[in-house]
């Protein structure tokens, strides 16, 4: 069971690393669309990884010694909780890309231009609404 716990810890830390990537991307990227790219992907992946790590911890917490002796009623609650956490991961996998898509569409609708020029790359990372082409 120590292996499951180590796996869970690694998954949670990996999720934190991806979230660090998303956070750096949200601060450093030059325009709205690339920020949305960093936020959407890093956020979804880190959330799913952390929830999977938590599922590993939950399964490791089951008193397996009693279960092997035939007391299966101890399995009910941890497995129900694990299924719910996996359900959250699944729903985030569906809804988070959709909201990213919807916000991209909203950015296009509100008239934000993408950051295309290489010249003013290091001048101002946080551009205004209409950068010069």
């Amino acid at each position, binding site marked *: 069971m120590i292996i499951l*716990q180590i796996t869970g*810890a690694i998954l*949670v*830390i990996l*999720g*934190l690393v991806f*979230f*660090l990537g*998303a*956070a*750096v991307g*949200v*601060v450093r990227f030059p325009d*709205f669309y690339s*920020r*949305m790219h960093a*936020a959407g992907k890093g*956020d*979804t992946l880190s*959330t799913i990884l*952390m*929830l999977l790590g*938590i599922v590993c*911890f*939950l399964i490791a917490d089951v008193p397996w010694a009693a279960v092997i002796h035939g007391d299966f009623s101890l399995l009910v*609650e941890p497995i*129900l*909780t694990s299924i*719910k*956490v996996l*359900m*959250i991961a699944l*729903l*985030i996998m569906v*809804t*988070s890309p*959709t*909201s*990213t898509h*919807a*916000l991209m*569409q*909203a*950015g296009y*609708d*509100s*008239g*934000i231009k993408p950051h295309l020029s290489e010249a003013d790359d290091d001048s101002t990372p*946080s*551009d*205004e*609404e209409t950068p010069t082409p």
Partner: protein
Amino acid sequence: MELFFKLAGMALFVLMLPIFYRLIAGPNAMDRILAVNVIGTKTTVLLVIIGMIFARVGMFVDFALAYALLNFIGSLAAARYYHQDRLRQERGAS
């Protein structure tokens, strides 16, 4: 294990600070809405982590699930707002 989850929760709070920077300094409203979206997704994980710390995940996972389902409606509404706003402006212009 409890200490590990406390440290993970604290790390999530610390990593939210850059997102808060984007919330304060975002040049226009869309960047702020982006930051809201990111923080909303992370709140789900924080709720499950708080459940792990109290060793009562079965109780907390219910409203983490509700959160994951409902969080999507807010950004969808913002997207609809911009879409309808553009249509309204085009209608006004033509």
